[in-house]
């Protein structure tokens, strides 16, 4: 196993999207027990260095594969043969076309909130929007489940993988866009957020 191995191979898995997350966790714990630096304190310096390196790969692999969204992002990267820079998925946030009009209105409302604060009805309106968009995000994420099934079937058989990857990318772009807007809404409503949400995968 080299440090540049892909994350599916780390767990000896085929490049499929449906994964039993509980079993993955068990395997992650098992691998950690074998390579974690804690257990190499009296080993040779070479073994200590390897242990550190392998643990890092296993940790990243687990974090990437354990939830569907980051798994799909990673798969797209792999399939498109982009250099594995962990954070760059190459997916730009893009508003779902059916929401474009409403988005303009929301952006306006956000501007107003920033400029002049929020009165009761406006606050309520933004809350409603936030709830609706959160629902929408959920449904986008749910559609990833369908794609996952289709993808795995395509791996086994001979489906249109390229087309599937494109559709998954669209879904992720929409989700990323929704994330940004939902976080802006949260901020405008004065809810607790920590910035740099953009790198948060969930």
């Amino acid at each position, binding site marked *: *196993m080299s*440090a540049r191995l892909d994350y599916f191979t780390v*767990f*000896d*898995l*085929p490049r*499929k999207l*449906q*994964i*039993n997350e509980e*079993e*993955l*966790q*068990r*395997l992650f*714990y*098992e*691998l*950690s*027990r*074998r*390579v*974690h*630096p*804690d*257990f190499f*304190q*009296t*080993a*040779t*310096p*070479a*073994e200590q*260095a*390897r*242990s*550190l*390196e*392998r*643990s*890092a*790969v296993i*940790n*990243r692999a*687990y*974090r990437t594969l354990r939830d569907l969204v980051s798994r799909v992002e990673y798969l797209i990267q792999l399939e498109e043969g982009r*250099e594995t*820079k*962990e*954070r760059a998925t190459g997916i730009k946030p893009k508003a779902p076309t059916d929401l474009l009009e409403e988005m303009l209105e929301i952006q306006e409302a956000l501007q107003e909130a920033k400029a002049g604060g929020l009165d009761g009805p406006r606050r309520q309106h933004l809350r409603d929007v936030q709830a609706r968009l959160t629902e929408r995000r959920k449904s986008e994420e749910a559609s990833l489940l369908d794609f996952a099934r289709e993808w*795995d079937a395509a791996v086994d058989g001979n489906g249109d993988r390229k087309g599937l990857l494109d559709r998954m990318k669209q879904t992720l772009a929409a989700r990323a866009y929704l994330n940004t807007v939902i976080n802006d809404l949260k901020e405008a409503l004065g809810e*607790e957020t*920590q*910035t*740099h949400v953009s*790198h*948060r995968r*969930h």
Partner: protein
Amino acid sequence: MSRIVGIDLGTTNSLVAYMEEDFPRVIPDAEGRVLLPSVVAFTPDGVLVGEAAKRQLVRNPTRTIYSVKRFMGKGYEDVKEELRYFPFQVLPSHEIVRIRVGEREVTPPEVSALILRALKERAEAHLGEPILKAVITVPAYFNDSQRQATKDAGRIAGLEVLRIVNEPTAASLAYGLHRLKEGIVAVYDLGGGTFDISILRVKDGIFEVLATNGNTHLGGDDFDRAMVDWFLADIRARHGVDVGGDLEAMQELRLGAEAAKCRLSFEDRTVFTLPLTQHGFTYRREIFRVELEGLIEPFVQQTLSPCRLALADAQLGLDQIEEVVLVGGSTRVPLVKRRVQELFGKPPHSQLNPEEVVALGAAVQAHILAGGITHMLLLDVTPLSLGIETLGGVMSVLIPRNTTIPTTAKELFTTSVDGQTVVDMHVLQGERELAKDNRSLARFELRGVDPMPAGMPRIEVTFLIDANGILQVHAQELRTEKAASIEVKPSYGLTDAEVERMIEESFIHAEEDVASRLLIETRNEADAVIRATERALTQGGHLIAEAEVARIKEALAAVKAVSDGNDRDAIREATGRLNQATLHLAEVLMDSALKEALASKQVTEALEKK
């Protein structure tokens, strides 16, 4: 391996613990006290640490240093706001904090080293053997500079710091040994100067931290300060006297307020007295618990928001927390307990002494490292996002917060000008959009890049956060596969050379012969490598070619031939060659361990949910 102790290096008090049979125990001093006040006094008669230093604090306020943990890994700019609370003098500078004591200056790691040294000696007296290795705890929310400063303190004290472990997670290990059920656990840790919240999943002996958050500037000290300000205002109002400028009275007031706060954890009211001999009277005031609670409520409220943020990062709701554990002396305060219980909707655990549990956990982690416990493993996270400054002063995140450590990230760098041979990087930690709002960790200079047209060199920089939460950086030019040399300028830390100078100059080692100490260190290291290599050969010798075994044995014999001698360089060189010879064997061993683990996977089908 010689014994490894666990040390809780606290803001107010410090402790040392070790593992006896299957139980961790804190080590008392000769008088039976387990808490060592984290106070260091520089007196004309020498250095005092602990109780003795605390006792003379009122008489010698400008040369007695306390709460030094608040200054670890910090710059003057970071702390100047709160300096009015401290009687000792911190010198203005652009670098790390320097404290003036009489004729000389000391840095926070040097002061901490004196506390560590006192604990080391306490353990040595109790156990009757030399103690050279330790696990030291730090707040989970400590950044890289603060962790590094703690490690430096250990080194100055003559301790090899095998691991920096987070306080809340250490506490979970102490609880986990005998008292914790499997499930999702929240550890709420409010100490003298710092607050941490960690959310863990405990399963099959694995303690996996899911998220952590906190505030490294919030704790019992703040409660005391609120009380001090309240008493000062009261004295002014009722007696028309301003005590604020009187350093000695202020220290008496602070210690008295702290004691009153502790009494109010058990009583509804208490009487606070302060002799003001200069003014010819004694201030006397009854204070009720509800009054104290009014004063400290804002600080307690400040702990709740990090709890919610940690839960959000762990993607968990409050109702999914199965157990809540209280850690740190400040969780004895009834208001704190009440607010935590309200937040999580369940009574928190506090069976283990909240002031001792972190040290106990450090001893457990030490035992794991020594190979004494094999069924437990702690998987911790990095508390803050790590990134680099990019064009326009924006921070680009390479490793997001709450990533399981150890972890790595790689980034490609190139040149922007033809013939450029040096590339700069500015490494940051924090959650803000702009570089300037985040913590500057260090500036790196990649040197020795071959002159080429702009954009041609491809330098891959690997950022590795080790199991201590401390950053290591390596760089390689991809085209030539040459390792690039990196010069590190820590923004708020000591360089290796400075630490070594401190070891030589320190109060601690004045009596020692540094050269002979270094020789002994080198010999010990060689012996450890010899033993480890022999074990690796037994384990994996059959997995590699005979010629390779022969090469390793040859290198092994070469180390043995010089390891008892006095030539430190020869020992180091031979050890280095032996390490080189074992690189491939290490790889083979690690791969075979991983293969074995993967073989435990029932069938591939089990993992692919159909």
